[in-house]
């Protein structure tokens, strides 16, 4: 029986696992969280169920159906709290090294999987651009605020400002409202011009994405009901306070996201939630050797196959498209990974849904994609790397003194990106500050900021406890002469 391993139990991974099982495969579904649903369907733990959970989630019934179908399927094994800490590329396929148990626990169980087919559905985390004061307590990534609201029913503050770019700001504001917070405004960096070009071009295509539009319309109704202003072409460009956010500066932005002088105003607030887009979690795809596009998403074909035989990808790592795209891609990937035909049956329907949802993703990028003018929000003393507290001024100074614009060198000489988050927060920002593409050696030595062979931190004791296996030499030794 063909063994399919799916990594990630968000919408893409759940759909992939179900499609693969329906296609006759034995399926193992891994997720680092202790429950299913991913970031999108993050919810209260089962032992503390919320009565009105469905009100907080779009397509909650879809989640329920997928969860129940997987639980009932005899060929599916769900492994929660499973951290895939590394992926080894073999001559054929891949080996996943997994630790199962509480992330901080001692003596986690080691699991080694060598599947016939691998579906990567590792998702994305939200990206926050730096601004003066962003290190203050009270500044949250929108994803963190959303997680607290959905998973813990905790509001991040009483007077909250939401800012950044993209449709994700709307559900975040909506979740905050439902936890009782007062949302002072939603400030969208994209101006009406970009929004119009992104959303109003080829309007006939939008008809197909009615589900998505309906979801967004629901969030907008929430904002209207609570009289929350939605302000395009604006950003929070600074946060202020003594040990805690007390106020933020909001300014109008031009088309390039540069602040328009004279439009700054201060607003009293005790929390600010920011999200400027998403960064795909590419560690496993890079370790597997999957080709990436110029905009650094995993390249897939019509059947969601990556450039590496035996590895499929679905969801946000193939492009930021939201839950509808992820569900459709997962269904196609799962079918293909199980050896099924993606040109017929449910996979064909899913494929069409995916095409529509992908158009939606392109619109998001066209309307809300990050523009370079944000660099002007920074001051010399603004921390770019929060782990190591490396400032914008220091990064520029080091780059100028050494004459190097290469990320790895500047990281090692300025310490930016070397801390515990391993440049997950600042890596792309650093690269953009240093000026874009770099010469690549095409090997492990290439300075890709997304390359992290150790996907998550691992206790040295857990590494030491791994079973010893016979050494296999991947390459026959070359003749020295």
């Amino acid at each position, binding site marked *: 029986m063909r063994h399919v391993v799916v990594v990630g139990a968000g919408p893409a991974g759940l759909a992939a696992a179900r499609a693969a099982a329906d296609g006759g495969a034995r399926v193992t579904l891994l997720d680092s969280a202790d429950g299913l649903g991913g970031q999108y369907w993050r919810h209260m733990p089962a032992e503390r169920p919320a009565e009105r959970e469905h009100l907080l989630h779009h397509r909650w019934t879809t989640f329920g159906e997928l969860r129940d179908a997987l639980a009932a399927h005899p060929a599916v094994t769900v492994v929660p709290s499973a951290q895939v800490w590394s992926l080894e590329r073999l001559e054929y396929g891949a080996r996943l090294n997994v630790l199962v148990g509480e992330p901080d626990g001692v003596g986690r169980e080691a699991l080694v999987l060598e599947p016939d087919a691998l579906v990567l559905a590792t998702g994305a985390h939200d990206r926050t651009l730096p601004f003066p004061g962003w290190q203050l307590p009270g500044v949250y990534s929108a994803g963190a605020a959303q997680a607290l609201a959905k998973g813990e029913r905790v509001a991040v503050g009483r007077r909250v400002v939401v800012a950044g770019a993209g449709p994700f700001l709307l559900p975040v504001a909506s979740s905050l409202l439902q936890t009782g917070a007062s949302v002072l405004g939603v400030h969208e960096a994209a101006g009406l011009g970009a929004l119009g070009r992104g959303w109003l071009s080829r309007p006939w295509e939008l008809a197909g994405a009615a589900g998505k539009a309906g979801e967004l319309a629901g969030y907008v109704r929430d904002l209207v009901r609570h009289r929350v202003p939605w302000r395009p072409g604006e950003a929070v460009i600074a946060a202020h306070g003594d040990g805690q956010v007390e106020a933020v500066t909001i300014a109008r932005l031009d088309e390039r996201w540069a602040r328009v002088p004279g439009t700054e105003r201060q607003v009293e607030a005790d929390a600010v939630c920011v999200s400027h887009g998403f960064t795909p979690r590419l560690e496993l795809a890079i370790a597997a050797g999957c080709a990436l596009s110029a905009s650094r998403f995993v390249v897939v074909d019509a059947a969601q196959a990556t450039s590496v035989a035996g590895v499929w990808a679905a969801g946000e790592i193939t492009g930021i498209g939201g839950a509808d795209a992820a569900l459709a891609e997962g269904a196609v990937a799962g079918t293909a990974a199980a050896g099924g035909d993606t040109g017929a049956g449910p996979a064909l329907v899913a494929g069409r849904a995916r095409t529509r949802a992908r158009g939606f993703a392109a619109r998001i990028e066209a309307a809300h994609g990050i523009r370079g003018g944000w660099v002007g929000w920074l001051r010399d003393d603004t921390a770019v790397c929060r782990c190591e507290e490396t400032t914008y001024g220091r990064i520029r100074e080091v780059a100028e003194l050494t004459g*190097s614009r290469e990320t790895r060198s500047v990281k*090692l*000489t300025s310490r930016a990106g070397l801390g515990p988050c391993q440049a997950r927060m600042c890596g792309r920002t650093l690269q953009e500050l240093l000026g874009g593409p770099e010469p690549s050696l095409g090997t492990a030595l290439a300075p890709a900021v997304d390359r992290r*062979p150790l996907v998550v931190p691992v206790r*040295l004791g857990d590494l*030491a406890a791994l079973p010893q*296996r016979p050494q296999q030499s991947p390459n026959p030794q070359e003749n020295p002469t």
Partner: protein
Amino acid sequence: MAADVVIVGAGIVGAACARALARAGARVTVLDRGAAASATSAHGEGNLLVSDKGPGPELELAKVSLHGWARLADELADELGPRFPSIEHEAKGGLVVVTSADGLDGLRGFAETQRAAGVEAVEVSAERARGLEPDLAAGVVGAVYYPQDAQVQPVAAAEALLASARRAGAVVRTGAEVTGPLLGADGRLTGVVTTQGEVPAGDVVVAAGPWSAEVAERLGSWIPVRPRRGMVLVTTPMEQRIRHKVYDGDYFAATQSAGAELQTSAVIESTRGGTVLIGSSREQVGFDDRLRAAVLAEMARRAVAVFPFLARTNVMRSYLGFRPYMPDHLPAIGPDPELDGLWFATGHEGAGVGLAPATGDLLAATMLRLAPAVDPSAYAVDRPTLRNHRPADVSDVQGTGVTRASDTSRGARGEART
């Protein structure tokens, strides 16, 4: 003589050569196909060691180089100013520990030969070793302390050497890959062809680390450098509990071996950033960059055997690099025996950072006919221990002809790398 020199490779060795030559008055251009200090130099630990070297030419070079780094640390700081990233030179000392009576005998004998060769190697009891490193494992039965062992931050050090070379007139061009030779009518090398055009030069120095064999071949010559892969683990930052460089007694055996199979030994130290670096491994797998969990596990076991408390620490990063390995464990520093105008400064295996200053000085002295600090014959490219690795006719092993630069450039680019 022609004063213009092209150096292929902007790693720590190329940077040291560039500084030495530029300050001696040569007009220097450094070429790198990638960025400066981005390959082998950026993927090691910055070790400046005498502890792992037995008596012989490598130790002699290391001793000179150790003084070179101490001097450079001051010179570079004076020259480049306090805002330039520190090269973090620190003579923290090394401690080699052993866990068995046999191991202790071997270590003692080795330390004695080192002392005779001028190395400070102080035998210490297990109790005294724990005074130096309170968290050592209970099983440690003895140790030798090497106060001369030191370190630098290798990327900052390479950037500082390059910045200093620039101030002496050197030019650094990154993103320029050498594709073939420029040859004079008499067959002498007169420069290189690169992806950014031709760069004429009186002399060409190959300082391309583990890629030197390929560069040499593209230029019409030969050097038996091969990649020897190593991995390093980095913990999350913590309060410093490890004060020296600490190795288990197997490190020396691993550095001196020629085996292709995996070898590991514990090399453990704290960094200024609060992380602990854990090495080391040695594998000959070509330029294969795939992670191997079994190697990490073996390194972890060895590290925990020396410092049990490390078992509870989190490793947040691993990286790997390729050392330039030579079959006789000595670097090649000097002129090519056959192709006039070609020079080498490569093959330092895991000791390139430590040996860089002395290598740069030796190369400059040989090229500019000054008095060298060490006898250059031991590092000569035509030394006896390399001769039997040399093919009968170098041109037989070349993938391309070398008659016209443009042909060579095309042929060399089309070749697949192993």
